[in-house]
């Protein structure tokens, strides 16, 4: 690094503002130029594969890279807006029989019934006594304490798990974790 510093005094640049010397190149001694370029490149390659990327100075050259300011601005603006938009989700209330208060979950963050069930179990762990809180499959109903049900767009209470996940997410208005005995009345199988 020391050598690099010394070289800087004689180093040729192509006048990048924002880097150290704003000297215009005069007569080029090709060797010196090449050497400094190589060193710059090494730094740059490391910067590349690393996390922080290129030296900050390069980003400050006015009008470089030659991308229309319209395009640059629209990316910057969308980036900022996106940060705000990411906070919206598909939040539904979850009640559990016997629990003193309700919770809310964002259905958008789950990809399957499994994920949702795991999350709900974790959420309501404190309120249950049995080993298996929530039924996973229809036949579990006799073994588990509770079943998950949901209110759909038409206002009907349905047992969770019958329809494809996506369809469920788009029609679910709220969730209710019912006691097993009550839930038995809702099973789809006769």
């Amino acid at each position, binding site marked *: 690094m020391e050598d690099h510093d010394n070289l800087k005094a004689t180093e040729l640049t192509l006048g990048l503002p924002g880097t150290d010397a704003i000297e215009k190149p005069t007569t080029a001694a090709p060797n010196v130029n090449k050497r400094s370029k190589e060193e710059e490149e090494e730094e740059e390659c490391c910067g590349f594969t690393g996390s922080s990327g290129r030296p900050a100075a390069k980003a400050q050259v*006015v009008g470089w890279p030659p*991308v229309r*300011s319209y395009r640059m601005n629209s990316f910057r603006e969308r980036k900022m807006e996106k940060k705000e938009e990411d906070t919206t989700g598909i939040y539904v209330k979850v009640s559990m029989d016997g629990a003193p208060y309700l919770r809310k979950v964002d259905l*958008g963050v789950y990809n399957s019934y499994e994920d949702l069930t795991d999350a709900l179990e974790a959420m309501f762990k404190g309120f249950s006594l049995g080993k298996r809180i929530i039924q996973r499959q229809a036949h579990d109903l006799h073994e588990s304490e509770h079943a998950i049900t949901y209110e759909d767009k038409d206002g009907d209470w349905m047992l969770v798990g019958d329809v494809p996940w*996506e369809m469920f997410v788009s029609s679910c208005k709220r969730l209710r974790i019912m006691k097993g005995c009550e839930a038995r009345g809702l099973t789809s199988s006769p």
Partner: protein
Amino acid sequence: MTYFPEEVVEHIFDFVGSHRDRNTVSTVCKAWYQVERLSRRTVFVGNCYAIGPERVMARFPGINSLSVKGKPHFADFNLVPYDWGGFALPWIVAAARLCPGLEELRLKRMVVTDDGLELLARSFPNFKSLVLISCEGFSTDGLAAIATYCRGLRELDLQENEVEDHGCQWLSFFPDSCTSLVSLNFGCLKGEVNGGALERLVARCPNLRSLKLSPAVSVESLNKILARASHLVDLGTGSFAVDHRTDVYHTLMNSFPKFKSLRNLSGFWDASPCCLRAVYPVCTSLTVLNLSYAPAIQGDDLIKIICLCFKLQKLWVLDSIGDKGLAVVASTCKELQELRVFPCDIYGAGTTSVTEEGLLAVSSGCPKLNSLLYFCYQMTNAALITVAKNCPHFTRFRLCILDPGKPDPVTNQPLDEGFGAIVRSCKNIRRLSLSGRLTDQVFLYIGMYAERLEMLSIAFAGDSDKGMIYVLNGCKNLRKLEIRDCPFGDIALLKNVAKYETMRSLWMSSCDVTLGGCKALAAKMPRLNVEIINENEETYEFEENLSDRHKLEKIYVYRTVAGPRNDAPDFVWTL
């Protein structure tokens, strides 16, 4: 030809379409000049300060279409100060007085005001088409005036303008009687859009073929619009932010297959990868696809779309496509003519991007490729030489290596040989942008081989005045030369002064030209405007005291018959 009556000559001239041919024809003799000028319907003014509007309209009283360009190209990259000039109003005022039959106006890089738009709207009863590209200075109020007063408007095309948002009501100003719209593009508007007004407008314009929505248009609105506009050829989707698990998305999915005529797709501002599936059904007929404003779509998802687009002629993407994605382009898009790859991550955090591999793949897979804009992190001479061999038909070749002055990473050589191969092989090249480490040698090649070259953009290149001199002495068709951050000084500037009268303009910034050099140029060439743009407030008040050796930050030299302009701001001196 002097034996032919004028009507016959005029009829023959009807077949002479291009501006250049008509300009040439008009110089043959006085008779032809007269016939030509009276029968000219379209005029293109490449530099609004090269000639005054009144003079244009006095010469061509019958024009119904006018196209004018204002600021220098480097204004796109913030190199030209905000109020440099390029005002549209004088042109609109003159046309209102002298060419009331005007039907089309196309302005690029000009300052347009709401007053100007209102005057435009009220002055031309046959007005049909307004195209504004990279303009600024107006608001949605001006658009409201256009909507209100332009009966029979067919086209309103706003591309990449800076428009001040004064509310969303401008769309409602299109009267119920307006049913003539063929093309509506307001993609650059940032504010809210009145969805209902838009939907009703689309519903009552049966000839609408091109519709480009702004990011503010929601997918719900898009659904309603698409239901009414199944004959669209060209669609900009607006935000396209939709959760693929919703009903809205399912409606969207069911709409796209109905678009039998759709050829041109863009927008997708906030699209996420999953919802792109909705457009798969139309991909096989697309000829133009612009995903360059969709940063959320990464390489693999891009590939899924592109491998369906085998009729594609024009593709604009972000460099997140990667070399792998470009290989898919190469193997799928055999009709490809134009490719633009933009940098996704401008501030350089080293995410996926493209290298010479991607370009090589496309050049070998797409034999019809003739236009390229390519931002990449590196390029090699070997690759460029191969590209030149594979694609001798390039007319536009713009390569931007993001790191200024970067040499060939394999050999550490400058890229002179690579670009040299391009100009040698591509005999029809008209536009060229250079980057990377370059010596005077590349300019020697350009001067020698690039006979059809019209526009050359140079940055961080060259070793000495010789470089610029090679170009000015060669390139006999050169029209625009723009240079930044190169070691070219007065010797180069003054070597071939007559050349500048054959060109539209010369831009030089952060080079070595001095005040003395520019004074000499201005003295020798009275029909050039030599403008010095001096943003350094300390010096411009003392212009008389500045030494001739003072280096100038920015100069803009252009031929003109209008003399020094009278609307120049304080920081612009015309010598």
